């Protein structure tokens, strides 16, 4: 457009009344009490008190984490130095024996696999629920369902775990046999027997994390501006195309964050998994076979009878869980940040 600059002067004069009134500038905030004038000293004191209060809380939290970390590392180091196996690659777990031999390989494998399978099951279902509530359901049904999902998300996950264990797990045998029969050509579903497997644990975990992921995703999809949804519809999008064009891309970072919260819950879940799995320390590629253990379940199972070295070994495995969770979160953040300027948050 070459014509714009030439015309800008008269155009602004002709119709510029609306832009002529600039709001008066706010006075600068009094965040430096030392140089604030006497008349503003009361505000300055309040600012100072609040600033120090928040700073103390923040630094206190960091100090607490540091103290815990140091304690854990010390206890873990003690056990690790007595270990006769390689901690990262050994599958066995005999920390209470003399000499102690233990490794995190089997439980780490169980943790990662069960959490990953749980995510594969739960996230699509949760996103589906959230989309149904925000886009498809009639208004009244949608508000009722939204309320119910929020309520379900507030129930402690162990309640779902127990339900899954007592009600669901006994019915899992048929599904597992079916998967084994028809999808046995996929190595994951092969194997000679089915039972209290990582797969059952994964399904229980999926049920646990479903409400929280669904509730957060719903919240995210509700944030999609009506203007973007209408833009897609006005281009002749069907409802599904509108979701694909406007809702899902806008909600993606939020859904990833919601999934990460779910993943954290799944990896840290203890009691339900400890009750489902037979606590065997071996790495098996067969998802459906009765075998497996997770780090969190192993801590719950082993803590009571562990000696000094044994507890140090469990603490060491806990540190591994912490590191894995951190790596997963860093990756997730990197995925979200990759297209930050396209996230819509700046619009």
């Amino acid at each position: 457009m070459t014509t714009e600059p030439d015309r800008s002067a008269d155009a602004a004069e002709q119709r510029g009344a609306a832009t002529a009134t600039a709001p008066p500038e706010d006075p600068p905030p009094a965040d430096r009490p030392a140089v604030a004038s006497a008349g503003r000293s009361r505000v300055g004191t309040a600012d100072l008190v609040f600033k120090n209060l928040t700073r103390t809380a923040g630094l206190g939290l960091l100090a607490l984490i540091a103290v815990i970390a140091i304690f854990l590392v010390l206890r873990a180091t003690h056990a690790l130095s007595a270990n006769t196996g390689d901690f990262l690659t050994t599958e066995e777990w005999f920390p209470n024996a003399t000499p102690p031999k233990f490794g995190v390989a089997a439980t780490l494998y169980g943790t990662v696999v069960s959490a990953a399978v749980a995510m594969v099951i739960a996230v699509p279902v949760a996103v589906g629920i959230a989309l149904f509530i925000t886009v498809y359901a009639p208004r009244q049904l949608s508000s009722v369902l939204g309320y119910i999902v929020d309520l379900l998300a507030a129930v402690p996950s162990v309640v779902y775990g127990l339900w899954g264990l007592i009600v669901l797990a006994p019915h899992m045998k048929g599904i597992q046999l079916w998967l084994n029969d028809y999808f046995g050509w996929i190595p994951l579903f092969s194997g000679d027997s089915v039972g209290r497997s990582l797969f059952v644990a994964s399904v229980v975990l999926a049920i646990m994390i479903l409400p929280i992921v669904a509730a957060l995703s719903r919240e995210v999809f509700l944030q999609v501006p009506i203007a973007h949804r209408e833009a897609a519809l006005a281009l002749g999008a069907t409802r599904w195309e509108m979701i694909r064009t406007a809702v899902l891309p806008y909600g993606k970072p939020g859904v990833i964050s919601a999934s990460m919260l779910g993943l954290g819950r799944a990896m840290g879940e203890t009691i339900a998994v400890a009750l489902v799995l037979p606590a065997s320390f071996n790495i098996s590629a067969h998802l459906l076979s009765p075998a497996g253990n997770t780090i969190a379940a192993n801590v719950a199972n082993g803590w009571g009878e562990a000696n000094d070295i044994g507890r140090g070994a469990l603490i060491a495995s806990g540190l591994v869980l912490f590191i894995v969770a951190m790596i997963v979160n860093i990756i997730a953040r990197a995925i979200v940040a990759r297209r930050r300027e396209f996230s819509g948050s700046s619009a």
Partner: protein
Amino acid sequence: MATRIDVTGLTAYYGKFKAVADVNLTIEPKNVTAFIGPSGCGKSTVLRTLNRMHEVLPGARVEGKVLLDGEDLYGAGTDPVNVRRTVGMVFQRPNPFPTMSIYENVIAGLKLNGVRKKALLDERVEESLRGANLWEEVKDRLGRPGAGLSGGQQQRLCIARAIAVEPQVLLMDEPCSALDPISTLAIEDLITKLKSSFTIVIVTHNMQQASRVSDATAFFSLEKTGDPGRLVEFDKTSKIFTNPTEKRTEDYVSGRFG
């Protein structure tokens, strides 16, 4: 391609509330028709009935007929999705998809229509952006986010997105109300240019704008708050602004009312 629109006995509701009653008018092809009137008179509602966007809001419904070259938009077999591919729309606030680049925004509608060929898409992007008087400003940064443009550029991007699917009618719902005067002028120039290819209907609060860009003007008004809006007068723009038949129209366009 451009199309005549015949509106007969149109009444639009939001739930139980009758927003606008018994509208009859004919919109000529390759003309700019402006809808003016005070807030709440139903002019935006009528505009949104012309591409079946009104019913997108929960509880909203329409009675009456809207004929697009003789074909009833509200006929039993008519799919609103197809209607919206024929009748494009530009909204009050620029609303490019924030997750898409400039290029992706322009082709969003084409992709919905299943166009996949890169060469064809490239061609249509340039054509549409040129059509929207935006090409020179963005040709070197087609991969940048559409939301990073200025408000006026975003609105022209939205116009490019709407014309990329080659609609027959272009509806504009107060397209300049969120823009500064210079961007407004750019859009008005663009409207004058686009009318050679499209039938354009524009809702505006700005009477000077209506008199500058439109060929015909429809004046809507309402008796009092809570009453449905009605079409008071519909005629050539020159007649509405110089010698209207109705007293209320004269009061409104001369600034004595509202």
